[in-house]
């Protein structure tokens, strides 16, 4: 470029941007690391073929708490916190509602909530767990991308990346998350990702003695879960929030929130 040549504004801007971008490209080339190894889970399991969903049959649940105990053992859930828990709803004739979940029902229920003389209209159990929402609030608020939707529709927490700020715990409208005090990270139901990717049922599904829980592939029209959803009428928890939960509750009562 000679000293006489004039650079007009347009040329200057173009030149500067190109230079900046060039720097960035050179920089990435300089600092580039070898491409990450392929994401392999388990043999014969391609996450792109799956969208995991869950069905809870509240008409079958007997409130024994086997699922809570199995989950706690399988996933080493710290005492006092629950990735799944069982709630009991008792509605008296005068419409008083009694909702209980003593220690998440990890030791079941030892007695009725209402006294023996109370006229109870109906009573039932509702097991709860992460809804693995399609439009989850918890993953949206994570400032570091530590909680995410897996390609197969499971909401997971990356424990090495999570910094334990707790935004997701506050964001979940279903109370399905907690801060793991031992590890300082957010903790939640993984839908037993280490089991379902091996073709095993989740710990809670396997533990349920009455078949009140079912986990399956919503993408497969012939799967048990799709069959059940065709046959039975179901509800969702807080559907008006627009979180599009993938946990379907058979026989869900209006009183359940």
């Amino acid at each position, binding site marked *: 470029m000679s*000293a006489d040549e004039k*650079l007009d504004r347009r040329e*200057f801007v173009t*030149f*500067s941007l190109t*230079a*900046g971008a060039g*720097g*960035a*490209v*050179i*920089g*990435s080339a*300089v*600092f580039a*690391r070898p491409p*990450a190894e392929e*994401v*392999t*889970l*388990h043999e014969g399991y391609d*996450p792109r073929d799956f969208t995991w969903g869950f069905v809870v049959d509240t008409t079958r649940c*007997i*409130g*024994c708490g*086997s699922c809570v105990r*199995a989950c706690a*053992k*399988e996933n080493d859930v710290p005492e006092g916190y629950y990735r799944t828990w069982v709630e009991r*709803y*008792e509605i008296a004739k005068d419409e008083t509602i009694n909702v209980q979940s003593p220690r998440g029902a990890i*030791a*079941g*229920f*030892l007695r*009725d909530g209402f006294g023996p003389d109370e*006229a109870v209209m109906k*009573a039932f*159990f509702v097991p709860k767990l992460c809804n693995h929402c399609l439009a989850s609030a918890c993953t949206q608020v994570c400032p570091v*991308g*530590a909680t*995410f*939707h*897996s*390609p197969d529709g499971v909401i*997971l927490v*990356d424990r*090495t*990346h999570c910094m334990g700020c707790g935004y997701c715990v506050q964001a979940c409208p279903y109370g399905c998350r907690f801060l793991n005090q031992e590890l300082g990270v957010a903790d939640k139901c*993984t839908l*037993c990702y*280490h089991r379902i990717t*091996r073709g*095993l*049922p989740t*710990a809670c599904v*396997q*533990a349920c*003695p*009455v078949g009140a829980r079912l986990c399956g592939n919503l993408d497969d029209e012939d799967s048990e879960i799709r069959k059940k959803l065709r046959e039975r009428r179901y509800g969702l928890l807080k559907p008006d929030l627009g979180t599009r939960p993938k946990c379907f509750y058979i026989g869900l009562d209006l009183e359940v929130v």
Partner: protein
Amino acid sequence: MRHRRTTHLTRGFTLLVLGGLAYQGIRVQLVPATFGELGTYRAAALAEIAAEQPLFQGRDACNECHEDIVDTVRKDTHRTVNCEDCHGPAQLHVAYQMGEDDEGITAEMALLPKEKDRALCLLCHRRLRARPVSFPQIDPDEHVAFLRRDGAAVDCVECHSPHEPIFLLTDAESARLHPVIRECFHCHDPVPETPVAEVEGHVPVFQCIDCHGELVEDFEKRPHSIVSCATCHLYTQVSDTADRIFKNGNVKFCLLCHEEKPFKDPAAIPLVRWPAHLDEEEIAAVDREKTCIQCHWEKIHLMSWGETAEETDR
């Protein structure tokens, strides 16, 4: 130093290049590897989470060695209960027995508990209002009341084998379907004392006698009429309209009540010593499964080979 007209541009250019380099350099340091490959997260986390070892092995794993017990369980009503619900997760047990990955696993760690605690049974079977009525459930005090044992609790396993809790005569899987059974307590809590037939305006309900009239009338005249039909013909609801009903004539089922045990009161219920009873009576046990009803059917109700209550002249 003489400034050329382009010096400021060269400086700017250099700064931009350096800035770009610095940005990338810092970014690469801060953003973890594999971040963004599949989405705004670390793709490697997927494999890390999936790599965790399952603790619960499932019944198929138990069946590898304990086929006899698993077969027994499959035939009775506990067929839907996973072995590890009572015995605990079997990962260490299986790893130790299979000899894989045996570093540090001792025989003690691999031992699975034999749960015999009444509290464990009651987790499922304690009577609660919220439990579905078709699920078998008991009031623990009421249930053993006829045993007349004061004070300490009796363990469930003293009568019921957890692997074979009610000793079905027919396999649980092949038990016949029956239109859904409604009992008073399905709708009424507490159950009114007036029989349904005497309640004016009560919606008609099917009772056993409506279809099995002759049998029920006969049954009412015999000593077992103090128990209900469902005591022996247990049922579980399998759909909105159907129950699965079991036929119980198995000798072990009769012994649930009638076997002599230190905590049972012979004044409350006829008791026998088993299997000494067979020898005392010099009975050749032709069919060990049905032995009791072959002699004692007349205490229950008319069987296909028996006579009516009148004919037996009771």
